[in-house]
């Protein structure tokens, strides 16, 4: 997919250390990154923390961004890697216990409005992770393999398992 010229220019400026350009990139992409972290982590407070970490990580690595990947897909990869990294550090459980009542309420609204959203949240973490990246974010198995280090066959079987679990729930 071709990158929007404005985004290209903003990325170039951000690579030269321009904070304002990076802020504009943040404003343009945060709704897509936030929903991804909400789904991957299964919680709004967690998603807030992960979204912040994603952009800080992206700022650190912005010079490595090449033209092969669009900025949004590049950010999605960083967001997914950030979620995995934090899962490894077991910091997510601590953050999730800090939920305030309003956030808790918003969280219930988001996940209970759509039965499918609720069903995705109930999947095992890795199955959910693969399904979201492949079916919702349209990332290829090759990219998911780079993020997770799981073999492509393993990813395929996890995707099949999560789809089958969802099919049962959807048919009910």
């Amino acid at each position, binding site marked *: 997919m071709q990158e929007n010229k404005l985004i290209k220019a903003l990325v170039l400026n951000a690579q030269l250390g321009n904070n304002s350009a990076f802020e504009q990139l943040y404003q343009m992409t945060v709704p897509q990154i936030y929903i991804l972290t909400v789904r991957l982590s299964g919680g709004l407070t967690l998603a807030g923390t992960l979204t912040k970490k994603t952009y800080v990580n992206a700022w650190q690595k912005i010079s490595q961004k090449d033209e092969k990947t669009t900025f949004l897909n590049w950010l999605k990869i960083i967001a997914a890697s950030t979620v995995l990294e934090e899962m490894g550090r077991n910091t997510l459980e601590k953050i999730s216990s800090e939920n305030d009542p309003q956030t808790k309420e918003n969280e219930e609204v988001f996940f209970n409005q759509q039965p*499918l959203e609720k069903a995705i949240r109930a999947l095992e973490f890795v199955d959910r992770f693969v399904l979201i990246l492949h079916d919702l974010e349209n990332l290829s198995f090759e990219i998911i393999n780079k993020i997770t280090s799981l073999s492509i066959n393993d990813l395929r079987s996890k995707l099949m398992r999560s789809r089958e679990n969802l099919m049962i729930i959807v048919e009910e």
Partner: protein
Amino acid sequence: MTHDKVKNILNDYFDENLDIEVDIETQNHISECADCSQYLYSLQDLMNKVEKLPRSLKPHVDYWQDIFHEMSSIKTDALKQQEEIQLKEAGQQIKQDDTDDFVIEQKKIEAEDLLNWEKKKVEYLTKLKTPQVRNTLIGVLSACLIFFLYITFFLKGPSWEVKKFQVSGSTHEILGELPDDGIIKSDAITRFEIHTPSTGVLTIAPNSRIQKLQTDKVQLYAGALTANKENATKPLTIVVPSAEIKDFFVGGHYRAVVDDNNITSINVSDGWVSIIFNDIETIVLSNHTCKIHPDSGMGLPYLNTSSTVFIDAVNNYCFQNPNNEEALIAVLTKAEKSNVLTLWNLLKRVSRKQRDMVIYTMFGLLGDPPIGVTDEGLRSLNPEMMQKLIEEIEPEI
């Protein structure tokens, strides 16, 4: 190939990840196996539902200040490299020529200035977080909010003048201004004309009922409403059962009819009209008609002079067999060049995989895509490309 083997690769078949030979073998097995067909049907159904899930969500709070704060304390890879290079260059220059000291000094001053400026920015942002500054800000914002509420609720908007006509005659009676929330109901022998100061002239046909909602919004409950936007300066929104109709560009002429079954029909004679139904925007151009069934869904706009078979195929796909691939193929095979607006709107309704078929048909009819529009862009519904394409389509139909 055995049933179990096929079942294991059905997901890859669905994702079009199989080699052509395996793909054909799988296809042959599916055509004879009810179990595998049912599995594929369920998978398609699931993917249709997944397609409809939102792809963005605005956070309830703005994280930028926190991110910026952290960014200020770290150096990007690029900055680190740049600094290393500058240090090396500076070192070499000192060795080569002592007179360059002045230039280096200047560079240092510039860098320090930059650093001070960044520090000041961080200090300023930190100050913003102190209660005193925050309270002042809240005070100013509250004053703005009160002013906004005053304007919205206490200052009356421009008035709507209502004229009543007898169907058989041309003389009229001026009824005065229509207040906010005011309702107009016409009987079998009367019609009304509403002259709005900025959204054009609205004609209410006999046996109709409307309600003014705001200065630029009206609800049509029953009957027919014609919007003549010739001298309008602002867009008008017409609320009908399950949808909202709005000018895409200010200007034009269109008619909305709500029948006894709450089915709405929009006929555009001039201009561009946008219809929002379930957060999906449909664009209707002049000489096109579009129907909305509150229960079975949103129709696709079609050219008034379209063939009957095409209109039947569109209605079948939209209202009787939504998301059915055979019904979709019937629309595509019966489309002519003059029907490309229907296909343009169809792009937003179909799944990613089906979108290829629509793109292929559209450019089969239109010829090459316009400059700046690519198949990949349309596949992901790139807003700029979609806009460019519809602008190219308009003169063709």
